């Protein structure tokens, strides 16, 4: 039998409060948000922290969802994504992983590096600049998600790309929201 206890212990040690793997469908997105909402309520987290965690999570998941709507994955398992939320003493860590086409990697890196190089005021200006000029993509995303995550969390966004198979890479993203 698979050692579930082992998985449990590891998640406990790493302060994981939620782990999910699978396709992020529309109805699932609603359920995840509802679940996290309840969990934050239960932990009687400060309303500021709660709103920031919720917003960051929302943008992360909608980025994945929107990307899946426009990309043509050859195989079904490439639609599978991972979501992990850790609550350490000083922060919530929202961590996602999903497959992206290799052709996207440089664009994403450039975008996150640019966002990470800006301070709070510059992020505000950058956000407004994109808001005013950018026409939304057909899937509805306006390309503001990453900037918003950086603004709301007040932290640099961590990322990693892992070569996975042929034309795809596994894209991991971590946003750390401080606990007030």
């Amino acid at each position, binding site marked *: 039998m698979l050692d579930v206890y082992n998985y449990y212990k590891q998640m406990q040690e790493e302060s994981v409060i939620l782990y999910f793997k699978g396709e992020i469908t529309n109805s699932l997105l609603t359920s995840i948000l509802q679940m996290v909402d309840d969990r934050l309520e239960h932990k009687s987290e400060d309303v500021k922290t709660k709103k920031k965690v919720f917003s960051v999570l929302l943008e992360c998941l909608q980025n994945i969802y*929107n990307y899946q709507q426009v990309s043509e994955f050859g195989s079904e398992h490439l639609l599978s994504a991972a979501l992990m939320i850790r609550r350490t003493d000083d922060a919530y860590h929202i961590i996602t992983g999903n497959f992206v086409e290799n052709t996207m990697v440089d664009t994403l890196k450039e975008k996150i590096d640019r966002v990470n190089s800006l301070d709070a005021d510059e992020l505000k200006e950058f956000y407004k600049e994109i808001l005013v000029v950018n026409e939304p993509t057909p899937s*509805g995303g*306006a390309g*503001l998600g990453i900037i918003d995550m950086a603004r709301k969390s007040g932290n640099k966004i961590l990322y990693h790309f892992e070569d996975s198979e042929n034309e795809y890479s596994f894209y991991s993203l971590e946003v750390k929201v401080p606990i007030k």
Partner: protein
Amino acid sequence: MENIKLEGTGRTPEISFNSQTGNLVISGRSIPENSIAFYQPLFDWLDEYIKKPSLDTIFEFNLEYFNTSSSKCILDMLRKLELLSERQHNTSVKWYFDEGDEDMEESGNDFKSLINLDIELVMKS
């Protein structure tokens, strides 16, 4: 023209647009993944409304959350009101935020700096 009255859902805000009173209210959560689909009927309504507006127009934003996909739509609605104001109609905007919700306050300020309209930031206590 017909007024718009929509119940809020887990993803979309409650809407009350009244062309007789000129009171337009949007409240709750605006987090649809495809915001254009939700907002298009509201854009259409506003386009009609500004042709024959009420004497005074007050647009109230009382949002708990909105995603980045909605922020573009909010800006577009404000731009329509900007047109109204340019034609010398009384037009005002109230942007509500909870006490201590700096992010929502900041968002109000973002729009304020982008739009030439009287946007009042109102702290809810």
